[in-house]
């Protein structure tokens, strides 16, 4: 009996739920349907932007997304993914664009040259730098620390519970572009790479190191809003020469100067969406990106709001993207 009553109730629930769905589907409604062609012209539709885990990227993504949404009427979705997962997503078609790409020659070869599922969409105009940094107080106290040749001399300073008797080199998110393990090995440095986990962890460590005058050597990068708060000092590794980083296991030189670029999926490139041109025309200087990033990371502004603020303050630059 319990069975029948339960089944009946279940059946009733299903019927009622379907009734609700039907009602929802045909209930007209006077909520204004948003315009698909706000800017006039082509229909935009879905626009999936990859969002990689560092603030500068978040700024770019939301600038492009905000403009696509408000000026082109796209249905924008942000996909939180790591860099390489974003590439895979473009190959699969679930992601349309990456708006700040840091090199990745192996992925360029695989997806752009071989599979031909991803297309280069031009430079962003920002210049990327990756390197090892120390907090300002250290550079002041130990001026010669800025050369890699002296790092072993100071290794003892950087010992922590995690570095197994060696100096600690703090890295960021495991997905970030890094040669640090190989560099430490090939330059015979008495250091161990320890992972901090995220951009926020690195920033937190620099803040605390500067405040408490504690030693810290860490992986960091530009464009980066945090430099306006603290002038970190870069340690010079053996200078970069084209090709010196060809074999990831044998790298013994500094990171290359990165010309950051944008990528779109082949499928999206051929879709005729107006957002394709937006991505291709999108450029941003390091300084402009840092303005937005500071609002997001430092002032805890919602990325959408921060993007809106910048877009409204810079109509001429935005117009360039929409040409």
């Amino acid at each position: 009996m319990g069975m029948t009553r339960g089944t009946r109730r279940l059946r009733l629930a299903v019927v009622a739920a379907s009734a609700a769905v039907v009602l929802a589907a045909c209930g007209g409604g006077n909520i204004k349907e948003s315009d698909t062609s706000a800017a006039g012209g082509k229909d935009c539709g879905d626009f999936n932007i990859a969002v990689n885990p560092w603030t500068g990227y978040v700024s770019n993504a939301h600038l492009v997304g905000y403009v696509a949404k408000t000026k082109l009427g796209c249905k924008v979705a942000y996909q939180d993914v790591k860099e390489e997962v974003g590439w895979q997503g473009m190959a699969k078609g679930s992601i349309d664009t990456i708006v700040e790409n840091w090199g990745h020659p192996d992925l360029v070869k695989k997806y752009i040259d071989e599979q031909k599922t991803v297309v280069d969409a031009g430079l962003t105009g920002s210049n990327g730098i990756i390197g090892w940094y120390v907090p300002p107080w250290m550079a002041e106290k130990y001026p010669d620390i800025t050369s890699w040749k002296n790092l072993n001399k100071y290794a003892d300073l950087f010992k922590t519970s995690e570095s197994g008797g060696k100096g600690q080199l703090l890295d960021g998110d495991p997905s970030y572009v890094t040669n640090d393990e190989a560099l430490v090995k090939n330059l015979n440095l008495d250091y161990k790479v320890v992972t901090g986990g995220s951009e926020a962890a690195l920033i937190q460590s620099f803040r605390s190191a500067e405040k408490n005058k504690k030693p810290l050597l860490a992986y960091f990068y530009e464009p980066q809003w945090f430099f306006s708060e603290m002038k970190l000092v870069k340690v010079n590794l053996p200078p970069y020469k084209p090709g010196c980083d060809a074999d990831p296991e044998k790298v013994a030189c500094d990171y290359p100067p990165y010309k950051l670029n944008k990528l779109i999926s082949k499928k999206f490139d051929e879709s005729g969406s107006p957002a394709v041109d937006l991505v291709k025309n999108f450029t941003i200087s390091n300084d402009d990106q840092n303005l937005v990033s500071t609002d997001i990371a430092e002032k805890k502004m919602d990325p959408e709001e921060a993007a809106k603020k910048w877009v409204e303050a810079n109509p001429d630059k935005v117009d360039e993207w929409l040409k």
Partner: protein
Amino acid sequence: MTALQDRPAPPSVKEEQPYVDPVANRHTGRWLAVVLAVWLVGWAVFKGQDTLAVGFQDLTAFHRWLNDLSDQIQLAAAQGNWFFDGVIGSISDALNAIVSWAQELISTPAFPRPVPEIGWLGVAALLTWIGYAVAGLRPALLVLATVLAFGFLGYWQDSLDTLIITVLAVLICCLIGLPLGIAMARRRSVSAVVTPVLDLMQTMPAFAYLAPLALFFGIGSAAAVVCTLIYSLPPLVRITEHGLRSVPGTTVEAAASLGVSRGQLLRQVQLPMARRTIVVGINQCTMAALSMATIAAFVNSPGLGKPVIAALQSLDVGAAAVSGMAIVLCAIMLDRTTTAASERSEKQSRGSVASVGRPGVVLMTVVLEKLPRWASEEQRGRRARPSPLFRRVLLALTFVPVLVAIYLSRQYLGLANFPASVNIGPQLADAVNTFTNSFVDAVDTFTNAFKNLISYGLLNPLQSLLGESPWWLMAPVLVAVAFVLGGWRPAVVTVVCEAVIFGTGLWHDSMVTLTMTLVATVMVMVIAMVLGVGMGRNRRVDTVTRPVLDTFQTIPPFVYLVPALALFGSSRFTAIVAAMAYAIPIATKLVADGIRGVSPTTVEAARSAGITARQMIMKVQLPMAREATVLATNQGLLYVLSMVVIGGMVGGGSLGYLVVSGFSQTQLFGKGLAAGIAITALGIMLDRIARYTAARMGRG
């Protein structure tokens, strides 16, 4: 779930223990000392040789082979291979389509509308009504309160997305799991084939199969549903099988003697009688699904996992706390509703299912106990049950306002988008952050000193011992320990697991992970013994402590990582702290139950002999509760291992970190997958050693 918790835990797990002949005095301690001595001498002589340590970027042939395999699969899918593009691709498309349909219905804007098809008012009314229909009035009110809380906390859309993924996964689980469970109950052969697969599914860390699933199903909803499904299916299948098996043989025989067919027997006797048990299975399945649906954010699943991961990346304890709160509320709602639904059916022998829900290595079942109990308590007995007809009329009548609410929510923007003005999430997050910052500032020196004490005093020496012993010394030592503690069976398992770990090329990393697991387990047990003895001896301590433990068990595991990270920075110790937070509640409860289970006459007799409280604990209560203590260690160990893996994200290093990295760097895909295999092997090894030891010590 309530039923599971209503009886003391130890006997329930005991049924799961393999039978081991009781043998008098094995000199276990003496033999362990011998093994330790040999090990220490070997370590001192050969330290640092043949440790098989490999660089982070170094790959073995096996890792490269896995990489190639992944490339080939990707290429095959891109080129329209019948299986990867055809079969898997279609499943993936279908799942994605269902999820986005449901999302447009209730959570995301249904383009070109600026809002979902059904606004918040309609969704709240509909869910409340469903709660009423399946579980009753009180659960319905709880549903209403929870759904509104989603909005107040500012996670309306994420919460509903989590619900969608969870419910979809549970529905598919029922479609697959119920027939499978029935088949297993009816045929021993099916059971024999499927059970090991279920074992593997439960032992495999969820983290390890996220990457391969993303490879097959692409990132997004489809992969999220599939991994949630894999994780939550085993409890349902096991409990269904168990429920059907538990139908008394006499009843079945009586029915058979009346000449019913097998089909009739199933439909009219076995299923109705096992109904309540099966609903408990659905409850367990739902809770597991919810827990996994959050972790699925790593494959870009929509839902509440996203803000938690974002909080982890930006070290935002406040945001993690608020989104964690939404998850906890969601867990309470689902648990209370499914529990109440099961209690509606005929009362059957309570707790008959307890032994099936064994927490496998990574079965992070959310356990709820004394949270709002009123929500699931039916006022049965006090009032006569309404007739079925009356209920149906009532349900139909109450559906009218639901329809009105849905209609209105489609008409007015204010009823469609949850009003932002009442969103207290950000303020709450700010408050938590302000508190955390001042707290962390205040205890910074202390926490760091503590971290260093444990790291230098316990973690580093032990890691040196395990990690720097040559592998050919370490492997026999582990086998010997397994043999001394548990006999030849776990020793054989240990040999096999060691071979697997060796094959993955990650021996050294496995030893480091093992070290962290052991250190965390020791700390868990120290705290669990103190708390558990206190709780077992004193009702008042129990009343105060238990709700705290319950709350800790309800929070999804990786929400712990954020505050641990804020307190201890990124280190192995941070991962250990998170693991402790996860494992202490279950271990403490087991110890407390064991202490309380000591027969009152024994305690009374001892007391009349005039012994002190200290003697009472050390000489009477703890020895008598030995079985519970050993079990607590067993469970604590398994919980810790599952969490140490996730700790790879907060500086835990070794295997967990490789799994995380493998997921984000293509060239490490194979290595990450290998790390997943190594963790599984490590888990099976520890589980078997602990279980056989528990069985032996418990009887000893």
